[in-house]
């Protein structure tokens, strides 16, 4: 097979008809551009979500209390008080559990420095920053001793610090929660917004004992945060927790829910994956349309160049030479179209990323998939016209008008 010669001939033929070649490629350019553009945008969004979730700590398990039912009305998760401090302490005794934080939440108006701010007040254990993978920007976390003594110590988030102490170091100052003065021992590092758009820095963290006895009068927890030794034992720890709580609550029905961050991440990324499949499906359709365009033009081209085919056959081209020549023309068209589409798609996603301030990622595998599939489309759509050309009879072809 004289591939090199065929390449040369195909190149000359395409250059002779630049405008037509470009228009023929347009379908593939748009198809591939759409695939690459949409995949870049959705994988950028997915990556952002994954980064956020992993910043929560991948081996964290959350136990929510059950839902409250009154008559036919059912509350959401955490609406029924079922989790107790004793449950949390029992979980802490399980195998492969490295840290536990009983969590109670309440919204309250906090005052300091002559300013006030409505924020979320959380009761947690000293393990909280470790579990949430959250650093302390200044000062320290309150201690186990503070928990035992129901100490009036608090650690505040960046937003609260900014709102109440615009130009001062909050550490060592006093903040009033429900009229009780708490000593600020530390400021949490900034963590930004979570997956659901909540400002995670808009918070005040106090020992759970102080929260349950001083700020509120509660005996039930909202949820329990548990950190497993690593993400491989998450499933077994989760099962252990479920078994333990079922036994402790002596209930047949599960009055609590156990979730881990991995599941959460999967739920969120599943949405964006579904989105990207949808977009890829649309793009695949336009690729097929592009392929039909190439086939159409190649058929026209074969008819138009019947005489040329006859001349080539007369001077010694075999059927296979003609086949390869037209196949290469089709593949060159679609491969160049695919390459332009890839560049265009990446460019488009970069522009969107710049304008909308969104991260975009173009996976190399998708570039390879786009390029290979456009080449394959070239082969498929070029084959029939090329085969038709190769089967022409040289005498008929030479006398074709």
């Amino acid at each position, binding site marked *: 097979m*004289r591939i*090199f*010669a065929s390449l*040369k*001939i195909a190149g*000359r033929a395409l250059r*002779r008809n630049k405008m037509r070649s470009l228009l023929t490629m347009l379908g593939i350019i748009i198809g591939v551009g759409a695939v690459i553009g949409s995949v870049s945008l959705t994988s950028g969004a997915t990556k952002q979500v994954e980064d956020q979730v992993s910043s929560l700590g991948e081996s964290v398990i959350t136990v929510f209390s059950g839902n409250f039912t009154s008559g036919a009305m059912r509350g959401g998760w955490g609406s029924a008080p079922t989790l107790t401090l004793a449950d949390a302490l029992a979980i802490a005794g399980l195998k492969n559990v490295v840290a536990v934080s009983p969590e109670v939440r309440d919204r309250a108006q906090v005052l300091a420095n002559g300013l006030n701010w409505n924020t979320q007040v959380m009761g947690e254990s000293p393990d909280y920053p470790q579990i949430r993978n959250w650093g302390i920007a200044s000062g320290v976390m309150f201690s186990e001793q503070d928990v035992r003594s129901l100490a009036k110590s608090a650690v505040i988030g960046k937003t609260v610090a900014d709102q109440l102490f615009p130009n001062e170091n909050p550490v060592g100052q006093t903040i009033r929660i429900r009229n009780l003065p708490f000593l600020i021992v530390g400021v949490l590092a900034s963590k930004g917004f979570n997956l659901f758009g909540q400002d995670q820095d808009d918070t005040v963290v106090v020992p759970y004992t102080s929260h349950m006895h001083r700020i509120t009068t509660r005996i039930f927890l909202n949820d329990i945060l548990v950190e497993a030794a690593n993400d491989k034992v998450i499933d077994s720890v989760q099962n252990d927790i479920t078994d333990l709580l079922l036994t402790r609550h002596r209930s047949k029905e599960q009055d609590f829910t156990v979730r881990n961050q991995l599941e959460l991440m999967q739920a969120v990324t599943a949405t964006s994956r579904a989105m990207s499949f949808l977009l890829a499906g649309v793009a695949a359709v336009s690729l097929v349309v592009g392929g039909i365009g190439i086939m159409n033009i190649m058929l026209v081209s074969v008819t138009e160049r019947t*005489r*040329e085919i*006859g*001349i*080539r*056959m*007369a*001077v*010694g*081209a*075999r*059927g*296979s*030479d003609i086949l390869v020549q037209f196949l290469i023309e089709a593949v060159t068209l679609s491969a160049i179209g695919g390459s332009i589409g890839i560049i265009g798609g990446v460019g488009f996603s970069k522009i969107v990323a710049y304008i909308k301030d969104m991260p975009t990622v173009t996976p190399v595998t998708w570039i390879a998939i786009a390029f290979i599939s456009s080449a394959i489309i070239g082969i498929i759509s070029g084959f029939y016209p090329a085969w038709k050309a190769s089967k022409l009879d*040289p*005498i008929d072809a*030479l006398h074709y008008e």
Partner: protein
Amino acid sequence: MYHTGEVDVHAVRGISLEIFPGEFVAVMGASGSGKSTLMNLTGCLDRPTSGCYWLDGIDVSTLDRDALADVRNEKIGFVFQGFNLLSRTSALENTEMPMLYHRHRIQSHEQRDHAMHALDLVGLGDRADHHPNQLSGGQQQRVAIARALVNKPSLLLADEPTGNLDSQTSIEIMGVFQKLNDQGITIVMVTHELDIARYTRRNVILRDGNIVGDTPVADRLNAEKELQQLRAAQQAVKLAS
């Protein structure tokens, strides 16, 4: 034998024709006499339904499509009535084309050299980069001859090569053929013009698929001399007016 519809037509029958290296033969006949069929068979574009055809020591009648293509490439050079050059392709590239299909790969620079040499032979070395639409009919036919020569074929086949040319250009083209034939190239030419046939060395006349005449040309014309006479006559007309 040809199959057209239900009736078998014997386009050429009982023909026995031997052409030796170095000959310059004109095949003549009215339309429908079997010229084209003979030409297609001789050019290995078609195979006979019966009978055989030996070309340069090979029984071509038994070869398959691909083998025929290779024979055409290596042993036969075609010159057509309608020139049949590739449009929007330079004379040089047109001349290079048969080498693209050669069984052994020929390097690009060698292709160029061979093509330039062939163009020089037909006197078009200085127009190598011209496209067909920038060339006159005679020049296009010369490019076609260069293309036919480039693979050094054993046989040059010309199908009405002067059919689309005026008389002076026709004589010029015949001059090219005569020059090539003097260098030892075998030429078979189909024509229906008697005066054109007189430039060859042997005339074969066909009628209804049979050879009815096969004679050497006694009063062979010399294209060079004819051209000189023609120019002199034109000069005379110009002077007279």
